[in-house]
């Protein structure tokens, strides 16, 4: 994180032209929102010559970026002025006073344009603390050429995935080829994976009454399937246990996996001109277990943009924020880069129909499931850590699935009682 000296900034502002020059620092990764970030900065600074925007390109691995923010925000650093917030932190950061309430800075109509359920994630004490920039979810990518070669239909259930994978691996006889890859390193993405698998089996983090029930029979069965996928069926590489989203994407892109389960952003690199699998892959909804075709198995994510309460240019930051997330910018990001809009009105624009990829992403979001971050508030990082650790214990066969999930349940209950 860059720390500009406040004095230096003030001096620069005073010596500037008749219009007060404003230096804003924007902190967001380069992958998540793709080329739309650069485009927005260029457009905005062209329209507002008095404003300069420095783009602090942070890591696209949320856990790493989070540590960076925690350090800076704890120290009350005035930079960055505007920063991207993962949907799972929005409530926690707002609670901790790390996000500037926007109600006084932006007019009510601007805020009201956004999807209300997304706004909820960043609303604390009836005040909106960040604006949703885009939504995403995990999808199931597959190699169309391999399915065709073996006369296989696109698998809809995990049982079919397993069978298709075995047919392909047997047929190809290539030790370098794997069936399924995903992000099973001990990261947030692993918890997202687990939610996808368990919800696909009619389970999930909560039971029907809304109580935490991670050790339910449906969850145990789904988690056992994950373990068996790796250890019994040998469908996934051992390295899946170290894989982050881009590691999994790289294997798939190099033609070394038939199936891949990660978020939206991989679509762009996979379909790039120089990608070995360009034109040979497609994607569908996250599979479900037999008998659960209505399961909400698309684990959702998304990113918000918020303002640092210690920023010295909050007004300017708010103006840029409103412009960055405005309807026409979202439409451009949707049509050109497949980024899912957070303003419902964007979906009604006729030009949206031209983007089939985004339409398919949208169809998958209909089966969306969110992580338990809103209910956990500032305890969410520990909730996620408990789940990541115990799922990892099961996947590494350090514990049986039942032991791991029972332990998780006990730790979660203790945490919530604190």
């Amino acid at each position: 994180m860059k720390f500009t000296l406040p004095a230096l900034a003030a001096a620069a502002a005073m010596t500037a032209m008749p219009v007060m020059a404003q230096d804003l620092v924007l902190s967001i990764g380069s992958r998540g929102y793709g080329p739309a970030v650069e485009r927005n900065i260029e457009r905005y600074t062209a329209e507002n010559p008095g404003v300069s925007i420095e783009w602090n390109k942070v890591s696209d691995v949320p856990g790493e970026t989070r540590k960076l923010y925690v350090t800076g925000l704890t120290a009350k650093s005035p930079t960055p002025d505007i920063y991207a917030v993962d949907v799972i932190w929005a409530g926690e950061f707002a609670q901790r006073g790390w996000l500037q309430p926007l109600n006084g800075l932006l007019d009510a109509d601007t805020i009201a344009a956004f999807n209300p359920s997304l706004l909820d994630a960043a609303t604390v004490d009836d005040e909106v603390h960040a604006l949703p920039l885009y939504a995403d979810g995990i999808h199931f990518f597959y190699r169309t050429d391999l399915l065709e070669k073996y006369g296989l239909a696109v698998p809809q259930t995990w049982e079919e995935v397993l069978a298709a994978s075995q047919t392909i691996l047997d047929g190809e006889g290539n030790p370098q080829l794997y069936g399924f890859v995903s992000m099973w390193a001990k990261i947030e993405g692993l918890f997202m994976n687990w939610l996808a698998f368990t919800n696909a089996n009619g389970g999930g983090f909560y039971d029907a009454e809304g109580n935490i029930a991670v050790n339910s029979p449906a969850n145990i069965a789904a988690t056992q399937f994950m373990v068996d996928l790796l250890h019994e069926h040998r469908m996934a590489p051992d390295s899946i246990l170290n894989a982050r989203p881009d590691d999994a994407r790289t294997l798939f892109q190099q033609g070394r996996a038939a199936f891949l389960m990660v978020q939206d952003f991989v679509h762009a690199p996979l379909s790039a001109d120089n990608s070995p699998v360009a034109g040979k892959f497609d994607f569908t909804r996250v599979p479900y277990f037999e008998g659960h075709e209505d399961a909400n198995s698309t684990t959702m994510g998304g990113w918000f943009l918020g303002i640092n309460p210690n920023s010295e240019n909050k007004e300017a930051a708010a103006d840029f924020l409103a412009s960055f997330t405005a309807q026409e910018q979202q439409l451009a990001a949707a049509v050109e880069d497949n980024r899912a809009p957070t303003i419902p009105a964007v979906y009604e624009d006729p030009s949206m129909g031209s983007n089939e990829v985004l339409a398919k992403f949208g169809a998958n979001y209909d089966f969306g499931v969110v992580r338990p971050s809103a209910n956990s508030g500032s305890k969410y990082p520990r909730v996620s850590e408990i789940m990541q650790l115990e799922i990892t214990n099961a996947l590494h066969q350090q514990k049986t699935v039942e032991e791991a999930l029972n332990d998780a349940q006990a730790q979660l209950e203790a945490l919530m009682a604190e």
Partner: protein
Amino acid sequence: MTSMISPLDRRRHLTGMAFITPTMLVIIAILVYPILQSIVLSFGQSSIDGSEPYQFVGLKHYAALAGNDRFWNALWVTLLFTGLSIPLELAMGIGLAVLMNEHFRFKGIARLAVLFPWALPTALNTLMWRWMYNTDYGLFNAAALQSGLVDRPINWLGDETLAMMSMVIVAVWKTSSFMALIILAGLQSIPRELYEAGRMDGMTRWQEFREITLPLLKGPILVALIVRSMDALRTFELPFNLTDGGPVTATESLSLYAYKVIFDFIEFNYGAAIVVVQFLVIFAMSLLYILTLRNKD
């Protein structure tokens, strides 16, 4: 006794004080203050930004640590890592030092090459090794697969035992040269006459090493051991960059666990308690070494 100090002595004394005061102030500010602050934090409950006042809670955090399996695991991992890597580093270090002390062609280049791993930042070294250990693209698996030793890639960093072993290898590779440097300095201070006398008495090379070299190297070896043990007990960049403490928590050192508690869970007080325990472990280890060193003298 004070009356016996002459004005000249007093002036000299004051001059001395004046010279060391700035340094002492800096040390107090950047070293003593944070240590005291950590100790204070570990006995209380406070919000990180000072919005809630500090509340003394006594041994609450330490009691919680005593019942925290993950803390005990981190302590064990730290001690295991230190216990495995230090003896190997020492053996390698002595070997390298003895080699570098010999006369041979390109000795300068060889010395430089030995120092190279130590001169590079740990984080950089570690990322390089992480690529070599990579299951799908790494050097080691490429070699193992192509030579037909294995038919399925080995998940070096994904297996509990292999991950710890891999971490120890990186540490030994990196810091043996540091040990070697200190021991080499010791070797060069051993008078040649001793070896000449030994040769006259018909000592073999091994006897020379056992009877002359090793006993005279005790001082430098102990210094190297203290510095390296303190380093190993604090290890952070290595597991952070190589394994992130995994698989599960098999390589999660105390420093890494404290870091996660403080920066992921934002529990500064609990994290401070972990740091204080770590401080005590290092302190005890150093005391042990220093006492040993004193006895030998």
